[in-house]
C-alpha cells in the first residue's frame, strides 16, 4: 500500500514522509473506524488517536511482521473497541429496519434501476440489522467481510482464538439472518415479489 521507503523515512523522523503515511491511510482508516463506531466524529477522533500512537512508536514497526496497514488496523480496532465500551451502543429500531429495506435481494438487478433501488434498501437493512447483532460478532463480521481477513488475523486483532473468531462470525450471521427474517415477516405478510419469484423458481 505504501512504499517501504516512505515508512523508512518516516521512521527517521522526516515530517513529509510521516504526513504521506498519514494521508495514504487516512481514508481507509476512517471508513473502518466508522463501520465500528457508526459515528463520523468518533471515527475521526479515533483515527487521530491511532496515528498519534503509531507515529510516536514508529521505531517499533517491523515490516517483516506485517504491513503498516495491518499494524494500523490492530491499533484502530483496539481503540474503536475501547471507545465503544465507554459509550452506550446506539439503538436502531426494528421499525426503522422495516421501513428501509427487505432481506431478500435480487442478484440480477444490475440493469434494472427499480431492483437496484430495492437492493440498496436491502443493504441498508443489513447495515441496520448489523447494529443489533452482538458486539463481538459484529466486530468479527466487519473484519471478515469488509476487510476480508482470515480467521487467524481476526483472532489476533480481537485477541481470541481462531475458533472463537470463526464462532463469532457464524453466530453473527445467524443473528443477522433472524433479524432480517423477522423484519421481512413483519413488513410483507403477503410475500415479497422477489421472494415469491425465487420460491416459484
Amino acid at each position: 500500500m505504501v512504499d517501504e521507503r516512505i515508512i523508512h523515512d518516516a521512521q527517521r523522523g522526516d515530517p513529509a514522509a510521516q504526513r504521506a503515511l498519514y494521508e495514504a491511510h487516512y481514508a481507509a482508516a476512517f471508513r473502518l473506524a466508522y463501520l465500528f463506531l457508526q459515528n463520523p466524529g468518533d471515527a475521526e477522533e479515533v483515527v487521530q488517536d491511532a496515528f498519534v500512537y503509531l507515529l510516536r512508536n514508529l521505531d517499533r514497526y517491523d515490516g517483516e511482521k506485517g504491513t503498516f496497514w495491518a499494524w494500523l488496523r490492530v491499533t484502530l480496532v483496539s481503540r474503536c473497541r475501547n471507545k465503544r465500551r465507554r459509550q452506550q451502543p446506539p439503538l436502531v429500531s426494528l421499525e426503522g429496519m422495516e421501513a428501509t429495506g427487505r432481506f431478500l435481494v435480487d442478484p440480477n438487478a444490475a440493469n434494472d434501476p427499480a431492483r437496484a433501488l430495492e437492493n440498496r434498501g436491502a443493504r441498508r437493512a443489513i447495515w441496520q440489522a448489523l447494529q443489533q447483532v452482538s458486539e463481538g460478532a459484529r466486530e468479527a463480521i466487519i473484519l471478515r467481510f469488509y476487510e476480508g481477513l482470515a480467521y487467524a488475523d481476526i483472532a489476533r486483532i480481537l485477541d481470541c482464538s481462531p475458533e472463537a473468531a470463526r464462532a463469532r462470525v457464524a453466530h453473527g450471521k445467524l443473528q443477522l439472518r433472524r433479524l432480517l427474517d423477522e423484519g421481512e415477516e413483519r413488513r410483507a405478510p403477503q410475500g415479497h415479489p422477489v421472494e415469491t419469484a425465487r420460491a416459484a423458481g
Partner: protein
Amino acid sequence: MDKHLTELALAHIADAESPPVIEHLRSCRECQRAVGEYRWLQGEITAALKTEAKAIPLPRPRWWDLWERLHGGRGPAAATRRLFAAAGIAMLICSLLVAWSLPTPVNASSALPPKPLSIPLPAIVTADNELGHVTATPTPSQSGRQSPSTLTPALTLYPKP
C-alpha cells in the same frame, strides 16, 4: 435420511476456509440451499458494509492537528497562534503607553467654573497707612448691604507725605 445440519453448522460451512466434507450435505437439497443462502448473505454483508463505508463523507485529513499533538504544540498552527497572541499583547501595551502619555482629555463641561449662585459684589476697601505700610480692610457694610457699584476701587493708595 440423517438429521439436518444445525443453522450454526450451516453458517460455519458457508464461510469455512476449507469446507468440511459432510455426507449429509451432499445429498440434502434443503441444507445445500441453506448454505447457499448464507453464502449469498455474506456477499450482501460485504456489499452493505462497502456501500455504507463509501456513503459516509470523508472528512479532510487534519495533519497539522496531528503534528501539534505529536510535537507538543510546536506545529505551525501553534506558532501562528503564539505570534497572534504576542502581537495582541504588544498592541495592548502600546495603546496603554500612548493613553498614559497623552494629557488627560478635557471635558468641556467640567472645564468651566461652577456657575455661582450669586455674584459677589466687590467690597469697599479702606486703606490704612498708620504703620508705614498700607493695609486694606474691607469696609463694614452699612445697613448690612454692600456697595453695588463695581466702579468702586478695591484699594486706594494715598500718596505719602
